[in-house]
């Protein structure tokens, strides 16, 4: 019996049952039942995905279910990896949702309602199906199902906050424009192939002219990049991801964005067979720009979930740097380095899925407990929410590319690929690789700053508002879900020696031009084809030993009196108040000044003078806002243009039914005349 088939069947079945259950069961138990069934669906998805990675191929064809091409599912190792990642995120998010959406929760979020709970399992199922789709029709249907269900979920809280509706609008427009781009690309591709199945496309790719191949690639790249939140198509992401309910944010930010990467790899490497070098230089450039821009905006954000959303853009950028480098190497015929870079990118996808789930769920826990996402109002959560604090800290460590964090391993692997890439030959490599390394390094440095800010200002020190002061720890299911994600982070950080060899068939499935990265060693990750080794496990052990040694040394050498609590010294100043603390805004101020030219922040200083004298200041008001500059420069003009066009179009519609019918009539007649004339 094929475990992949069982897993996928069970997964889809559980999702369907969950959706039906949500329709029929009463409010009280709905979150629990839907959550459990969705978790089962996710877990079965993990099983199917891992089975797919292990080489259990699955091919299902249902020709009658859908017109044109029918439903065609094939699970190969590449799809398996993404399916497993989606499944894993879905398990944690679903368990979290049990507590998060329960009607007994604080403030009654309204998320236990039928409309939300019915759609949720469908979203999970759609995401699980995308990496298994093996024909254009199937792929597009699953993709659109995923887009629509996620849009509905984003809009869940639109009655409570007006920002949600706006975010939903941005998301709806961007995701559908992306969909159109993918559609154009794939249909153009299919027009040159005997059929719409991926196998047929793969065979036909060789005969395509370079121009058609390039157009297909760029069109699909636009669509997939917009789904991954890659600059400059990222504008919807920092709006929609924060405004969605937190476990949906986790699903979108940790699972859905990966599918954009999946699309690029599937189309670019597998179907089109790597193609020209400029494609991948483009991908690498987009990735590097996204990484730096995303993390820079994250470093400036004071909204916790917006920060995490921008960090998603950053991480997808890093993944694309890896994918782009892999494509460049593959186009140059260097299979070893191509495999290495691709493995780094895929490892980062998995790591990002784990830590972003954890971070969004923890942010949800904070939001649930305090009702605010504004870092400037948080603080002091350590004493009130110890488990959430610990787990967020773990996630922040994983996200900031420091040792003992998950991202460190994948970024290390990525840097190894880039460094050895200089020798791959050609000026193109000698110029792009150092720049890419610098971009990755700057990203890593700024990620440290962002997450020190998020964790330090958000959770440590003392509370900055009454909401943070009165926070209480979240319930057991939410903590449990975060713990699950946290355990995944720790496992990924310490045991890459297990995962990296398992990536070999996945990389192999991405195309014949990639060599599977050989890595060996149980404790030490030792690259085979190029020099390089790292052992996170031994490093962790060494750190632990060193820390113990330090503590023991203190025991023997230092004073043996027990620790005494004392007043904060603070240079002898009076008692502290929360208003004296550094806030997230002030924390990021030096960086904002350094990157002044890039960020173009809007600063307003209003000084009100005392009426009697201009020399005495009554009050000073300081406002700083860091707008998304790309949105400002690129999208606002387009929006204004669309708006003007719409205004002009209003003249056509004056409300007369006759007129509307007349438009149709004139058009019909006109067409017929055209036909008659051109014949």
């Amino acid at each position, binding site marked *: 019996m094929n475990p992949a088939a069982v897993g996928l069947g069970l997964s889809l079945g559980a999702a369907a049952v969950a959706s039906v259950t949500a329709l029929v069961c009463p409010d009280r138990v709905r979150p629990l039942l839907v959550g459990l069934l969705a978790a089962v669906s996710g877990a079965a998805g993990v099983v199917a995905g891992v089975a797919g990675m292990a080489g259990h191929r699955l091919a299902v064809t249902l020709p009658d279910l859908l017109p044109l091409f029918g439903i065609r599912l094939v699970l190969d190792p590449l799809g398996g990896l993404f399916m497993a990642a989606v499944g894993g995120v879905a398990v944690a998010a679903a368990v979290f949702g049990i507590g998060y959406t329960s009607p007994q929760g604080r403030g009654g979020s309204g998320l236990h309602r039928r409309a939300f709970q019915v759609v949720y399992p469908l979203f999970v199922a759609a995401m699980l199906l995308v990496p298994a789709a093996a024909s254009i029709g199937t792929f597009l249907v699953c993709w659109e199902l995923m887009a629509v269900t996620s849009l509905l979920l984003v809009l869940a809280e639109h009655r409570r906050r007006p920002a949600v509706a706006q975010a939903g609008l941005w998301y709806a427009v961007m995701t559908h424009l992306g969909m159109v781009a993918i559609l154009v690309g794939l249909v153009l591709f299919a027009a040159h192939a005997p059929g719409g199945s991926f196998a047929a496309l793969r065979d036909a790719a060789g005969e395509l002219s370079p121009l058609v191949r390039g157009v297909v690639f760029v069109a699909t790249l636009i669509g997939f990049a917009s789904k991954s939140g890659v600059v400059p198509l990222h504008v919807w992401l920092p709006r929609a991801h924060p405004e969605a309910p937190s476990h949906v944010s986790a699903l979108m930010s940790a699972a859905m964005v990966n599918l954009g990467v999946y699309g690029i790899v599937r189309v670019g490497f597998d179907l089109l067979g790597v193609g020209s070098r400029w494609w991948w230089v483009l991908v690498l450039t987009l990735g590097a720009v996204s990484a730096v821009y995303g993390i820079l905006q994250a470093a400036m954000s004071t909204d916790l979930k917006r920060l995490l959303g921008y960090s998603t853009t950053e991480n997808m950028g890093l993944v694309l740097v890896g994918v782009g480098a892999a494509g460049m190497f593959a186009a140059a015929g260097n299979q070893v380095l191509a495999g290495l870079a691709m493995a780094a990118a895929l490892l980062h996808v998995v790591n990002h899925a784990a830590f972003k789930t954890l971070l969004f769920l923890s942010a949800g826990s904070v939001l649930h407990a305090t009702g605010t996402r504004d870092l400037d109002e948080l603080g002091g959560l350590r004493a009130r929410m110890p488990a959430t604090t610990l787990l967020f800290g773990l996630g922040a460590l994983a996200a900031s590319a420091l040792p003992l964090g998950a991202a460190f391993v994948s970024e290390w692997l990525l840097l190894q690929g880039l460094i050895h890439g200089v020798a791959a030959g050609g000026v193109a490599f000698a110029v792009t690789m150092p720049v890419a390394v610098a971009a990755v390094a700057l990203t890593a440095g700024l990620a440290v700053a962002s997450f020190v800010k998020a964790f330090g200002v958000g959770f440590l020190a003392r509370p900055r508002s009454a909401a943070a002061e009165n926070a209480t720890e979240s319930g057991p299911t939410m903590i449990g879900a975060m713990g699950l994600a946290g355990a995944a982070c720790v496992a990924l950080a310490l045991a890459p020696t297990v995962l990296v060899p398992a990536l070999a068939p996945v990389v192999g499935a991405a195309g014949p031009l990639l060599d599977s990265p050989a890595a060996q060693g149980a404790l*030490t990750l030792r690259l085979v084809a190029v020099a390089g080794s*790292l052992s996170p496990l031994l490093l962790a052990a060494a750190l632990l030993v060193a820390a113990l040694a330090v503590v023991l040394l203190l025991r023997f050498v230092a*004073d043996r009196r027990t620790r005494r609590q004392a007043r904060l010294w603070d240079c002898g100043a009076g008692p502290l108040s929360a208003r004296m*603390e550094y806030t997230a805004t002030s924390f990021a101020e030096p960086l904002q000044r350094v990157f002044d030219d890039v960020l173009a922040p809007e600063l307003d200083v209003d000084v009100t003078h005392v009426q009697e004298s201009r020399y005495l200041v009554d009050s000073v008001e300081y406002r700083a806002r860091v707008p998304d500059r790309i949105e400002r420069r690129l999208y606002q003009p387009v929006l204004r243009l669309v708006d003007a066009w719409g205004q002009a179009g209003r003249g056509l519609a004056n409300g007369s039914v006759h007129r509307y019918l007349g438009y149709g009539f004139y058009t019909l007649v006109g067409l017929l005349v055209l036909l008659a004339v051109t014949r």
Partner: protein
Amino acid sequence: MTGVLVAALQVVVVAGGSPLLVGAMRQVRARLEGRAGPGVAQPWRDLRKLLRKEPLTPRGTTEVFRLAPVLLMATTLVVAAVVPFLTNATPLGPVADLFAVVALLSLGAVALALAGIDTGTAFGGMGASREVTIIALVEPTLLVAIFALSVRVGSTNLGDIVTSTLHDPALVISPVSLLAALAFAVAIIAETGRLPVDNPATHLELTMVHEAMVLEYAGPDLALVEWASAMRLAVFLGLLANLFAPWGIASLAGPLPVAVAVAALAGKVAVLGLALAVGEVFMAKLRLFRVPELLAGSFLLALLAVAASYFLA
């Protein structure tokens, strides 16, 4: 087995010698400024005094505050054991390469920054904010400099880099080495908080970076922070010395080569430290917002080193 012994010896040498390095630098500074100076061993006496004091925990702080000095010390100890200071065949070589070493040292700095925020004082937050800004900007320079060094070796493994320079001494005056060394030196000055980036002797609120973060520490905790900071300085200087001029390092195990290596390391680090101290006498601290210029310059040098390593090879 001998490898483990040498690694342990490295830790002991760094831990024991680093306060003396700081003492010597302060002494040189004092003499150049016309003061008598407290003597080279003064940092050791300070440490002894601090260790004997009662441990205090400021009210309202969390474990982060208490664990940060331990983590800072632990990361520094691990780095001291891993880096090829005395022999280029350390048994821990495959565990961590140059990237990992640099990242470990940042981890310690980040722990201290979090502790600074954790106090909830304005000074702590200010110091943490500035420190983190500097870390973020130093990272590209460091990594690109590492890139330049590892291109010609084809590996980021520290032992390999050191060995290749040992085999081909002419590499030392190649532009790659010189440019990378210069970039690395600027990055080290920024990372260890020396002039002109940060003044280790100041307690003026407008200018302090490192000191602002550790203002609330007292007693044994402060001793750990001070000691670890001294060790970080020694480790960075030792790294600079051995990456670019690895002479004297022991290629084979045995008491005599190792003793020579200890002497060579002490000599090289002392020379670098004294040069730094002398330089500091003649330098003023840069404004915080001038620091990016300095780091952009060193980044450019690192990038030039990479370009040179490819195009002039």
